[in-house]
């Protein structure tokens, strides 16, 4: 339990120290890398059971608590690992940008915000850390300073602020009903049938839907995620929308108000529409990073299909897809960033023949698209299979059929990229392109192995039990009634 504050304190301390060191010194990289590796290692040593840490020594009725259980331990590990790889990747990639130490400072502020969100058991504390994470992400989206990046950042910021304020109003309404901010205490006192609770649900689902880019609220995502520097796109698509949006949505729907009171079927159908809209948008894109960002909308839709089914199998599929999408989408953004770094070009119609010039990037890209498209031994296959099985076993065969159809459409992104970017003649202006530096290649290789191996989480029974099933059990336990009495 004592480890929990370290996940907030260490990134904050790193960010504060990084902001005062000299701009061009080599120890910027060393400090950022060592800190992120340390956090990633530390996250594996968190306890596997339920636990609560009393910040300031005040119990659930009085002060702020941090909590850990198998669900947020899983998300915590995913976040630390992806951010660590993104830091590693940035060593090479950020050579083209100025003010590197401040860049890392923002990454660590964002990490601290995400860790705070994941670990907190207090509504207002959640709001504060959400603001840290999202403010840092607004700045990072505009980090390149080009006019379209500023524009994307501003639009992202408007919608992000609206969603934050929705949630703040929701928190105020929760306080008006329960006089408590602790999630467990409030869950005990809130009356799900009360009309005010309905208003709270509307406000929270709208706010969290905006943050996680579910279908009607997805318009900001392609702009924001494609404008950011590549490692930041990987963090935003890979973990930020999951930590801020989907994880909190899971907690809110299943543990706070109870799945029987939430419009789960609506979530599933919004997921279906999102999966369709995302993949259609992606097929029409010419900009490589924008294509990946649109495909994120589609994959988030799959996660919401799993959540919306509300069955243990569906939730296991949603969680597995969350992990798998984190790995594969980060890998794809890394490889897109590698192409942008070396060829200085993102438009796929102007690229071509990079297979020979950039073999490692091609490999990473190939594995990433195969994983996201669901080619059998790779991660995306198992997670989508689980979601399809869950659809069938829940009797929602129409959703299952549509999900399978959109999965095939996602797969067609692979030949499109292969044809336009990696095969064919090399255009004149790309003749001198070289492979990216090894600091950018190695994270891609690591993520490729993750993409290959994530299916094992489901296939190895003991891992399945420890990682997926125990996390799903947290959600299937339902509302936190009486949880406060069982606190050790």
């Amino acid at each position, binding site marked *: 339990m004592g480890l929990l504050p370290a996940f907030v304190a260490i990134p*904050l301390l790193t960010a*504060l120290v990084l*902001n005062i060191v000299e701009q061009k010194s080599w120890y910027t990289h060393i400090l950022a890398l060592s800190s992120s590796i340390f956090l990633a290692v530390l996250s594996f040593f968190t306890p596997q059971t339920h636990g609560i840490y009393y*910040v*300031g020594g*005040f119990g659930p*009725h*009085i*002060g*702020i608590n941090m909590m850990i259980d198998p669900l947020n331990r899983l998300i915590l590990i995913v976040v630390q690992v992806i951010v660590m790889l993104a830091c590693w990747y940035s060593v090479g990639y950020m*050579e*083209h*940008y*100025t*003010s590197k130490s*401040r860049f890392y*400072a*923002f990454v660590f*502020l964002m990490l*601290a915000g995400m860790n*705070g969100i994941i670990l907190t058991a207090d509504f*207002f*504390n959640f709001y*504060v*850390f959400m*603001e*840290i994470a999202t*403010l*840092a992400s*607004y*700045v990072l989206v*505009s*980090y*390149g*300073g*080009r006019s379209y990046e*500023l524009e994307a950042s501003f639009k992202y910021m408007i919608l992000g602020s609206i969603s934050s304020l929705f949630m703040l109003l929701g928190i105020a*309404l929760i*306080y*008006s*009903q*329960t*006089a*408590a*901010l602790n999630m467990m205490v409030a869950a005990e*006192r809130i009356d799900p049938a*009360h*009309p*005010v609770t*309905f*208003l709270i649900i*509307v406000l929270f689902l709208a706010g969290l839907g905006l943050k996680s880019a579910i279908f009607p609220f997805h318009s900001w995502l392609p702009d924001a995620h494609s404008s950011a520097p590549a490692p930041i796109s990987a963090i935003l698509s890979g973990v930020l929308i999951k930590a801020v949006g989907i994880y909190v949505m899971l907690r809110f729907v299943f543990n706070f108000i109870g799945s029987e009171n939430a419009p789960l079927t609506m979530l599933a159908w919004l997921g279906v529409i999102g999966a369709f809209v995302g993949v259609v948008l992606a097929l029409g894109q010419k900009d490589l990073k924008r294509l990946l960002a649109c495909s994120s909308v589609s994959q988030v839709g799959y996660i919401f299909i799993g959540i919306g089914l509300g069955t243990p199998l569906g939730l296991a599929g949603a969680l597995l897809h969350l992990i798998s999408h984190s790995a594969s989408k980060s890998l794809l953004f890394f490889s897109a960033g590698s192409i942008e770094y070396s060829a*200085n070009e993102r438009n796929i119609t102007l690229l071509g023949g990079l297979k020979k010039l950039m073999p490692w990037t091609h490999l990473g890209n190939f594995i990433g698209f195969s994983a996201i498209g669901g080619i059998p031994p790779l991660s995306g296959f198992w997670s989508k299979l689980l979601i399809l099985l869950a659809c069938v076993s829940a009797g929602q065969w129409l959703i299952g059929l549509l999900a399978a159809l959109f999965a095939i459409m996602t797969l067609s992104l692979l030949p499109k990229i292969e044809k336009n970017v990696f095969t064919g003649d090399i255009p004149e202006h790309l003749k001198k392109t070289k492979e990216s530096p090894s600091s950018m290649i190695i994270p891609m290789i690591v993520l490729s192995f993750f993409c290959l191996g994530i299916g094992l989480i489901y296939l190895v029974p003991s891992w399945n039990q420890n990682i997926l099933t125990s996390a799903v059990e947290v959600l299937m336990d339902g509302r936190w009634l009486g949880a406060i009495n069982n606190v050790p």
Partner: protein
Amino acid sequence: MMVEIAIFFLLIFMIIGMLFVLEIENLLSAVVMMGAIGFGLSVIFLLLGAPDLAIVQIAVEVISVVILIRATIHRDIKERADESLSNISSIPLLVCIFFFFLMIYPALRLLPTFGEPVFLNFYSSSVYYLRDGFHLTGAPNIVSAIILDFRAYDTLGEAIVLFTSVIGALSILRYRNRKKEHNAS
């Protein structure tokens, strides 16, 4: 009861001010009106027994108005808020917001009665703070005791938000974003 009436009129003033902000053409007037609304809010806080907040609110409002005027408007006072054409697209949104309001109106009527705070009905943290806060922390200002002791973790987060926005503003406004050789290549 007097307080309630005073707050009612101040709120009406704020709503009229907000309409004024939305519809006026001159940006400078809009920003000054925002300052006036903030002042009204500060008076409401004072009436509602929150002097800490009244001080913070008025100081923050001064700073926001100064920032908005000095940093943005003085650069281009000739630009008027050109809002003539957006009326057609704004009507569906207005209808949506109105229906949203109608939808939530029944819920608003079920909120706790004004003047009877909900914390008295439960064993809530506020009861604890009021009863034992002074003994436990030694700070007579209970709000200070909450933000700096019981919920000091929130205060850390809040300081970090401000820190993020400081270095965010510095890094958004830096003059070189990318290195030269990259632009040339």
